């Protein structure tokens, strides 16, 4: 196959998987209700904290609102779980068939993983944005609505940054997939991700609100690019003219995580034991 035909194969994988995952509409509606509820709880907690703030916090309440609602809208984008089908393939040994395909295993799985992150996010993001951006402003809870981007430029930069977030998240999910080949410890590692990833990305507490002595560490870790960076670009907490550098840093992490994932998969293939008959 020519190189061009290869890329069409990977693109086809992304589209087919997306169509399959978009079937789960009922789950998406239920998920929307859940995330809306969590969002309101968070807003109320921050209202209470801001009301009793003794010193000026490094973020305004409006910037926190953006952070909360974008967080609820883009929650499914975070790499906190693995594709159950890939996990099953590894456990049952049918991963052997995948190795026979005339495609590079890393790219093949990466294409699947992109779809695995993209489809549920799309389904959940649209109703959440519609509700918090369009509907909330005309209710008594207008103070809690999602404000528009700080400027047109901030809005555009936000979109560019979210694309980087998608790749960053897929690259990290790939590392989680590969660790599953070390069955027991892989599962142990994957168990911890739902706890660790949201905190380091900023979904539990916006990263700028953490104590100053932690800021250096929080800046130089890849999860920041999965929530904190795009959210702060939207609200203008990261000014539009500083956004490009931040997006560059996101892509830098994408490159690092992909390189690490490929290296890890290469090592894993040598110790892969195909189970079952």
């Amino acid at each position, binding site marked *: 196959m020519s190189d061009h035909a290869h890329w069409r194969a990977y693109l086809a994988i992304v589209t087919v998987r997306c169509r399959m995952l978009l079937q789960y509409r009922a789950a998406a509606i*239920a998920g929307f209700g859940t995330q809306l509820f969590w969002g309101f709880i968070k807003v109320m907690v921050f209202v209470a904290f801001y009301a*009793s703030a003794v010193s000026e*916090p490094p973020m305004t309440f409006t910037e926190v609102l953006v952070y909360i609602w974008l967080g609820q809208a883009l929650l499914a984008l975070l790499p906190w779980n693995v594709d159950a089908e890939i996990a099953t393939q590894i456990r049952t040994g049918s991963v052997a068939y995948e190795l026979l395909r005339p495609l590079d295993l890393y790219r093949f799985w990466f294409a699947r993983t992109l779809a695995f992150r993209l489809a549920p996010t799309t389904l959940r993001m649209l109703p959440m944005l519609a509700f918090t951006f369009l509907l909330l402003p005309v209710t008594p809870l207008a103070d809690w609505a999602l404000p528009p981007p700080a400027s047109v430029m901030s809005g555009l930069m936000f979109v560019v940054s979210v694309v980087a977030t998608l790749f960053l998240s897929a690259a990290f999910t790939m590392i989680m997939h590969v660790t599953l080949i070390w069955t027991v410890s892989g599962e*142990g590692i994957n*168990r*911890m991700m739902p706890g660790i990833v949201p905190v380091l990305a900023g979904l539990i507490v916006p990263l700028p609100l953490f104590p100053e002595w932690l800021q250096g560490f929080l800046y130089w870790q890849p999860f920041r690019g999965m929530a904190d960076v795009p959210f702060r670009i939207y609200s203008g907490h990261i000014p539009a003219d500083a956004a490009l550098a931040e997006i560059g840093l996101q892509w830098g992490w994408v490159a690092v995580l992909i390189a690490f994932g490929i290296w890890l998969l290469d090592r894993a293939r040598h110790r892969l034991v195909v189970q079952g008959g």
Partner: protein
Amino acid sequence: MRPGPAAPVLYGRLVSQSIRAQIQYRLSFLLMSVGHFVTSVVEAVGIWALFERFGMLGQWSLAEVAFLYGIVNVAFPMSEALARGFDVFGAQFVKTGDFDRLLLRPRSTVLQLAGHDFQLQRIGRLAQGLIVLGWAIVVLDLDWDPARVVLLLYTVVSAVVFFYALFIFQATLSFWTVDSLEIMNTLTYGGVETAQYPLAIYRPGFRRFFTFVVPLGCISYFPAVALLGIDDPLGTSRAVQVAAPLAGYLFFALALVGWRAGIRHYTSTGS
């Protein structure tokens, strides 16, 4: 027919069998428990960070919120471990049709599900809850007379019963929806999240919902105010605060009534 062992004996056997099975995979069990511990510790870090930044949450100090957090996070993992059968009921019993097998056995379905898969690994989260609660108790320097100790134990037991009832409600719902619905997580995991902060900081509508419809505040916030020996900003009296956890048992009774109705409605998926 020879009658089988009494219900508590049978339940004990189911649980011990389940625990023995989990300990067979020692490394896996250890990693799962550590996983739960790490996950919950990291969550608590979020609350700590907010207090570092803001100092107080209204009139509430970090130690007071940690006390409330501790009660909830000691009770919830116990319910989670005990009620796993109900938690996975939709996906593993209704969707697959396996519930038919339970109905054929000469024992109550509640007993069989209660004994299904006692999740020992939740000990990781329990450990975290105990550490936070212990820290809060040391820092708060309360006078631990026997009455207060009894009130704390009664609060935790009521909370376990309440969360157990939530899992039964979740399972009952799947008689109608077939699969487990994520929306129920709003009440279980969302409930835990909500109860970690004082009820008084929420809007009146939310407060009423979590007092009178789903009595989450009754098993955490109100008794905690009594235990802390402070005045409730919502204006309840000590008697109300101490009686409030009884709502957890009432909620449990309602859950069992709902469960019966669900079984009557049940039609097998037949696969």
